[in-house]
């Protein structure tokens, strides 16, 4: 702020009108009726992500070429971006504002790139020391359990993971084929998580068989149960136990375990979820002609849309509105499966229209193998006595995974029923946060008001229409020749290009517009932020309009 020069006598004045100081004595802020202020919103993508990944933030860090920081930001919400970047159903993209301009940002591709960089740079993960005396048991080494273990270990709690199998990974390992999630990627993810802090792993320790929940409750300060769904649902059709019929998950387990499989020339897969798609595609790779039979239509299929498209692309055929009715088999040779033709009736509790038989219409398929993939369920035996259940599932309340026992928490499919990897990851993290607060006596965080924005709030003049950058992939014949990962991922240039498409909705990404366009030089450009100089801001609000991403809000002066 400058001083105003005043003259008491002409003797103090220059002989002609000539300036002796600048204008900063003149506080033009007094002209202002309305005040702009930086007001960062929550980007819609973040609200769309079950794990609440700060997508805008890590993409922004990428645009700054701060790869390690981007990775750290991502790992705050999700300890396995290399996994979710490959297999997630990416609801974030549905929310992406750019969808209403040209095409949504390819968030999973970016997520995967960041995660893989984290794996390629082992130095980024600095092992957390055990700083807490309270120990936590995590039962189940799938996505929920790994996530819970990671966030507890990072906070210094010694964690023991009890895993029924010989290796960690759970459904990630056995339920997802390698062409989507290669084993070596998963191995590295698991290794990174296990190496991230004081984590002990006990494999071959199945709940109910080798480990007793009540005992764990006594021995540990807290227990997280994330055992997932271990049982495939039966078809309920006579003859489903026998030659030529296999549970899809068992088939995938064999494939993922490297066992040679030979389902025969003709294969049917019953179901419409991701498991059905994976089974169908693995069967294609084993040389079969594959037909997926689903009792509803394409629109109701729970599988990720991309996976359905991939399956079609790979030559999988679909028959909709059909359910197996009976199975006929001889001593050898193909089975004959009779399918009941269905139609859609009234909506069920999921909101989808319920399939009901369409009179007597049937058709038959002759198949060497029929795989069932109509869903999985939990085995409640190991926890049913100790914990309140909701059917076969552990009953939890709220978002933090609290069960009927104070020290026991649960999350993932065992609490929600069949859901997604990212939801399991989110549940594991939230339970870990809750456990940590319980053990340390920290207060619960206050619920935040989260303002968000939509395309109307974006100044689209600053963006050029274009297309999402697809992830490169190997040719179809190579894909079908084995289990090689189909998508090869972005290179650096592609990563940067796609990251640059991000609107950074509601959050400043230092585009400089407010500073550039301020007619009153009343925006200070500081090291890592901007600041309004309200001594001089006249309240023209040009900054508000020219902020491409609505990171500035206004309020009337004196209110």
């Amino acid at each position, binding site marked *: 702020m400058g001083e105003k020069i005043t003259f008491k006598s002409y003797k103090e004045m*220059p002989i002609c009108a000539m*300036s002796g100081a600048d*204008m*900063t*004595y003149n506080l033009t802020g007094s002209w202002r009726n309305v005040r702009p202020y930086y007001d960062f919103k929550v980007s819609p993508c973040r609200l769309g992500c079950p794990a609440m990944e700060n997508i805008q933030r890590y993409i922004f860090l990428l645009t700054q070429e701060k790869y390690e920081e981007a990775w750290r930001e991502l790992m705050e919400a999700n300890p396995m971006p290399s996994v979710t970047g490959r297999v997630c159903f990416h609801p974030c993209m549905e929310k992406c504002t750019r969808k209403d301009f040209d095409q949504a940002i390819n968030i999973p591709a970016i997520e995967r790139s960041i995660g893989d960089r984290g794996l390629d740079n082992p130095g980024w993960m600095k092992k957390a020391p055990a700083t807490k005396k309270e120990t936590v048991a995590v039962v189940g080494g799938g996505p929920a359990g790994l996530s819970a273990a990671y966030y507890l270990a990072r906070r210094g709690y010694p964690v023991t993971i009890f895993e029924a199998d010989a290796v960690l990974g759970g459904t990630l390992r056995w339920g997802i084929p390698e062409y989507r999630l290669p084993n070596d990627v998963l191995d590295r993810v698991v290794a990174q998580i296990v190496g991230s802090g004081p984590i002990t792993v006990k494999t071959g320790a199945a709940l109910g068989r080798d480990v007793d929940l009540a005992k764990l409750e006594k021995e540990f300060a807290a227990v997280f149960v994330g055992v997932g769904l271990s049982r495939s649902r039966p078809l309920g059709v006579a003859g489903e136990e026998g030659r030529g019929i296999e549970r899809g998950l068992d088939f995938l387990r064999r494939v993922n375990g490297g066992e040679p499989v030979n389902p025969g020339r003709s294969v049917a897969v019953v179901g419409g979820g991701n498991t059905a798609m994976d089974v169908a595609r693995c069967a294609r790779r084993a040389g079969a002609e594959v037909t997926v039979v689903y009792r509803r239509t394409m629109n109701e299929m729970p599988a990720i849309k991309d996976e359905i498209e991939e399956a079609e692309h790979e030559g999988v055929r679909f028959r909709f509105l059909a359910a197996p009715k009976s199975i006929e088999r001889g001593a050898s040779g193909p089975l004959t499966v009779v399918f009941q033709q269905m139609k859609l009736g009234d909506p069920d509790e999921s909101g989808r229209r319920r399939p009901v038989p369409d009179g007597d219409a049937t058709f038959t398929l002759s198949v060497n193998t029929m795989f069932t993939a109509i869903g999985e369920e939990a085995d409640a035996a190991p926890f049913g006595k100790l914990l309140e259940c909701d059917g076969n599932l552990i009953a939890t309340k709220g978002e933090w995974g609290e069960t009927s026992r104070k020290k026991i928490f649960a999350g993932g499919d065992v609490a929600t029923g069949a859901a997604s990897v990212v939801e399991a990851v989110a549940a594991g993290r939230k339970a870990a946060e809750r456990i940590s607060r319980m053990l340390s006596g920290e207060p619960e965080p206050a619920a935040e008001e989260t303002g968000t924005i939509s395309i109307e709030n974006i100044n689209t003049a600053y963006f050029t229409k274009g297309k999402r950058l697809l992830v490169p992939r190997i040719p179809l014949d190579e894909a079908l020749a084995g289990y090689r990962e189909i998508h090869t991922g972005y290179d650096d240039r592609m990563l940067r290009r796609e990251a640059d498409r991000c609107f950074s909705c509601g959050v400043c990404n*230092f585009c400089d517009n407010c500073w550039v*366009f301020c007619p009153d030089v009343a925006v200070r450009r500081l090291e890592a932020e901007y600041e309004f100089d309200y001594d001089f801001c006249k309240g*023209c609000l040009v900054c508000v*309009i020219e902020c491409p991403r609505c990171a500035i809000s206004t309020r009337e002066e004196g209110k």
Partner: protein
Amino acid sequence: MNAPKIPLPELMTSGHLACQGCGATQAMRFALKALGPRTALVLPACCWSVIDGPFPHSSLKVPILHTAFEAAASTASGLKAGLEMRGDTETVVMAWAGDGGTFDIGIQALSGAAERNEDIIYCCYDNEAYMNTGIQRSSSTPIGAWTTTTPGVHWKKRPKKKMIDIMAAHSIPYIATASVAYPNDLIEKFRKAREIKGTRFLHVFAPCPTGWKLAPELSVSMARQAVTSKVFPLVEVTDNGRTWKVWKDFEPTPVKDYCMAQGRFRHLSEDELRLVAEGIEENWQYLLSREAGSAFVPGLQH
């Protein structure tokens, strides 16, 4: 934070006397960022005579010589000569005039300086009327506009003067239009101008929320729409007036949207708006023909 999109050093201070959302102020700030501190300004009567601030203060950190309304180009000619004759050959002299001081009262001195190819930059910041005196029409006021001297049914019936053509006819080395909505382009053009000897004419579109009856927050947005609706095309004329280049890499927007956002055009009927739009398209086609014609000027290598 990223490297700044425009140069960091500020040669304009806060506290100046411009209205809210003033385009002329943005234009000055950008221009000085491009030209740097070794710049001396000549300011004829215009909004900037007031914006600069009252004696003994100034909102610019470069020397300014205020001069009479019609005298920007001639004062600048003398200033440049005077500096050179006292050994300062480096300082860039820039006359900074409004549209009234350029299109109307100052055109004689400007024409004289341009014909002599004085080694000055002449920048017209164009807010399309005499704004400092309270919104009277100038020969830069566009067809259709209300001003206090083109009120009611007497809205301006004549199109804006083709200033770039007039300057091109003077065979000066560099002529360009620029807009405050495109600061990088503006700065690049001023930098280019800085490196050229002779008379360089820059015509900067600078919205006036007060005079256009426009919400101040929309001033940059209007400047942008002026370009995208072809109301104010971004043009560069080089090779002493012979080579014309018209910027076309934008999503076109309707002239009507541009006009209807501003109170000064709001009286126009649909038919009248159509006429305005036709005139604008005609001018655009004319510019494109100049650009196309550049290729056939004898003696030019492309």
